[in-house]
């Protein structure tokens, strides 16, 4: 876990005071609405349907227990005692007061947190695989690179007024749990034939109105040139990206208009000026930052434990949870534990202050004091010894954080929708509830297996509906909420965009439609074929026939 040095702390502290002054000038009437809009957005403050909304950065999804406790305290002091984790691993508060935001930022800065560049047309929080550092298949830990990029992108003087927002994700190893192919830039940490570390570079992925899968523009970039290369990409984008239409301003549109080859040529030409320059990251700096992410002091006897087997044999509820909510760890005798923020009742990604405190305590007791937030809007205790799993499960169950649904249909990614978001076309939280009510049977859910359901309240696609195995998009038809369903999307290594199933369905029919869809799957699957594989093999037709035949 990266710990701030004096420089890091100073920048964040000074930024808080700068923002405090901006807020003051705005409230005194000395800063126009338009000016302040741009400034507050670059500090994560939206004005929404109900109230302002503050988005706090969780850099690459890692937190200490101290930080999580501070988030809990903030939610109590300035908000309504809860927060909301997003698909980009940040946390949002839905009820802060505009005039209190500077104080919130002061409290955040005390624990090395901030809201810098969590919205606005600038470089956003870099995200990564939530199993970074504990995955057996990763080539190298992506987190040091995320931190180096965090520093480079923070208050960058040239790239604060880009055509549109800019999001970077990094992953390493064969699985892609960070949706890198639908980011403005996706970086895959790899080794070349000589064993040197570097990145495969993708650009131009993104969802929203014009969903696109990113294109590879460089097979191998030496790792120490990542800053110079990003600088080249950003400069080309800043100069050439469209500014006449905000729906055509993302880098994906530029890459598409020029063609990936021509875009790459521009970047490479710019990079000629930058590579090998002082932007090249020094070996010393790479080592300094990497030292914060060295493996924990793991118990070498952890695998000798026999109690886990006992609990698995005697407690079927625990076993369900173990199977769905805990994951392989590179160290024998350890598991990574997902804390499910997808309860039977409640909005996906929401967490109360009490729950935050509890998770912080469990992290202190069982997982080296660290917590991660995931792209799927859950939390993760990455390093739990197997002998402690049962205690962790009991504590999580008590706090309603142990629903055994990770990776299943009800582990939905859902945006706030109409209840909180002023851009929404339709509600999402009521539909999530309808789905939860209809699919509460654990055995049935587990039988359906891995299914990624993503639901957005409008075409901005905050919940990545295009890349859900099942995607749901809220649309407005003459003032009524309707829902368009897509099938076959994926944001993983085999990324693809979902195909529309057919006409949109009414709000009260969403869960029934899903039921028919999944019955069709159960009938048509071969052996233990996964839902996504079944859809890919058969196409949407058989599903469409069944779904609309009944209606």
């Amino acid at each position, binding site marked *: 876990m990266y710990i701030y040095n004096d*420089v890091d702390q*100073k*920048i964040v502290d*000074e*930024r808080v*005071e*700068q923002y405090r*002054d*901006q807020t003051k000038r705005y409230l005194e009437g000395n*800063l126009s609405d*338009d*000016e302040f809009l*741009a*400034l507050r957005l670059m500090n994560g403050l939206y004005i929404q349907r109900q109230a302002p909304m503050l988005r706090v950065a969780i850099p690459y999804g890692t937190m200490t227990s101290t930080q999580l406790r501070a988030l809990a305290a903030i939610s109590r002091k300035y908000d309504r005692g809860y927060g909301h984790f997003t698909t980009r691993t940040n946390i949002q508060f839905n009820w802060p007061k505009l005039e209190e935001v500077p104080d919130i930022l002061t409290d955040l800065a005390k624990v090395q947190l901030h809201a810098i560049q969590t919205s606005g*047309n600038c470089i956003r929080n870099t995200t990564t695989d939530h199993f970074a550092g504990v995955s057996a298949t990763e080539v190298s830990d992506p987190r040091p690179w995320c931190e180096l990029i965090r*520093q*480079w992108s*923070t*208050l*960058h*003087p*040239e*790239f*604060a*007024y*880009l055509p549109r927002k800019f999001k970077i994700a990094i992953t390493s190893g064969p699985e892609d749990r960070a949706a890198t192919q639908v980011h403005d830039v996706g970086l895959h940490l790899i080794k070349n034939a000589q064993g040197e570390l570097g990145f495969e570079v993708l650009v131009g992925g993104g969802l929203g109105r014009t969903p696109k899968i990113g294109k590879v523009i460089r097979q191998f970039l030496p790792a120490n040139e990542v*800053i110079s290369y990003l600088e080249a990409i950003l*400069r080309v984008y*800043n*100069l050439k990206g469209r*500014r006449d239409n905000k729906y055509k301003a993302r880098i994906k549109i530029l890459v598409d208009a020029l063609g990936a080859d021509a875009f790459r040529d521009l970047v490479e030409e710019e990079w000629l*000026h930058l590579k090998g*320059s*002082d*932007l090249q*990251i*020094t070996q*010393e*700096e790479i080592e300094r930052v990497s030292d914060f992410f060295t493996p924990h002091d793991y118990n070498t006897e952890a695998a000798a434990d026999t109690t886990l087997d006992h609990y698995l044999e005697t407690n079927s509820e625990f076993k369900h949870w173990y199977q769905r909510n805990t994951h392989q760890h590179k160290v024998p005798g350890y598991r990574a534990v997902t804390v499910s923020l997808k309860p039977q009742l409640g909005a996906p990604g929401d967490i109360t202050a009490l729950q935050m405190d509890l998770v912080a305590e469990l992290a202190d007791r069982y997982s080296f004091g660290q917590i991660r937030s995931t792209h799927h809007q859950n939390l993760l205790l990455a390093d739990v010894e197997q002998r402690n799993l049962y205690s962790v499960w009991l504590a999580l169950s008590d706090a309603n954080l142990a629903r055994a649904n990770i990776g299943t249909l009800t582990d939905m990614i859902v945006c706030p929708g109409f209840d909180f978001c002023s851009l929404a076309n339709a509600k999402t939280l009521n539909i999530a509830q309808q789905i939860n009510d209809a699919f509460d049977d654990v055995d049935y859910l587990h039988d359906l297996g891995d299914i990624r359901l993503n639901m957005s309240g409008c075409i901005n696609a905050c919940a990545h509906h295009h890349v859900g195995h099942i995607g749901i998009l809220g649309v407005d038809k003459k003032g009524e909420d309707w829902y368009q369903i897509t099938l076959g999307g994926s944001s993983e290594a085999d990324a693809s965009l979902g195909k529309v199933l057919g006409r949109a369905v009414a709000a009260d029919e969403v869960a029934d439609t899903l039921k028919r869809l999944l019955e069709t799957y159960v009938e048509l699957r071969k052996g233990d074929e996964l839902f996504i594989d079944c859809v890919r093999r058969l196409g949407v037709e058989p599903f469409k026939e069944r779904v609309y035949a009944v209606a």
Partner: protein
Amino acid sequence: MPLLKHKTLVSDDPWVFQEEFSDVTESSIVVPFTQLLQQVTIAQPQERLGVRLSSEESLDDLIPRLNQVSLVEIYFEALRDGRGFSFARLLRREGFQGEIRASGEVSRDRLDYLYRCGFDSVLLQAPIDAEQAQTAYQEISVHYQADARNDQPIYRQTL
């Protein structure tokens, strides 16, 4: 309009903007880029000629003519239009030694970024007092990135 030069409020600005190019004047003139492009020969000495380039115009087309001017005024068409920041950096990289000036939709809360990208002067639309201007440049005192003022990123700076 207040003019800040090298972070300081100045009152004597030798430059006057002229919609149309006129050859050999005594004053220091700034003309639109389209006007400069139309001139085949230019008698106005380089020291007294400046050009205004809008962020909608092509920096690439200006570069071959940089030896004709000693001031480039980059006109920001909109608050959210950040192209000018990159223009300034590229001008410096091209070796342009003259003054780089920002005008149009620029304001106090962008002063430091402008300076770091290589702008020497800023023509502001709103009034500003000397103290405010000072503060604007001092709000953030350490920087992670290399920029036009310092080619050393944080990992090469000796603090």
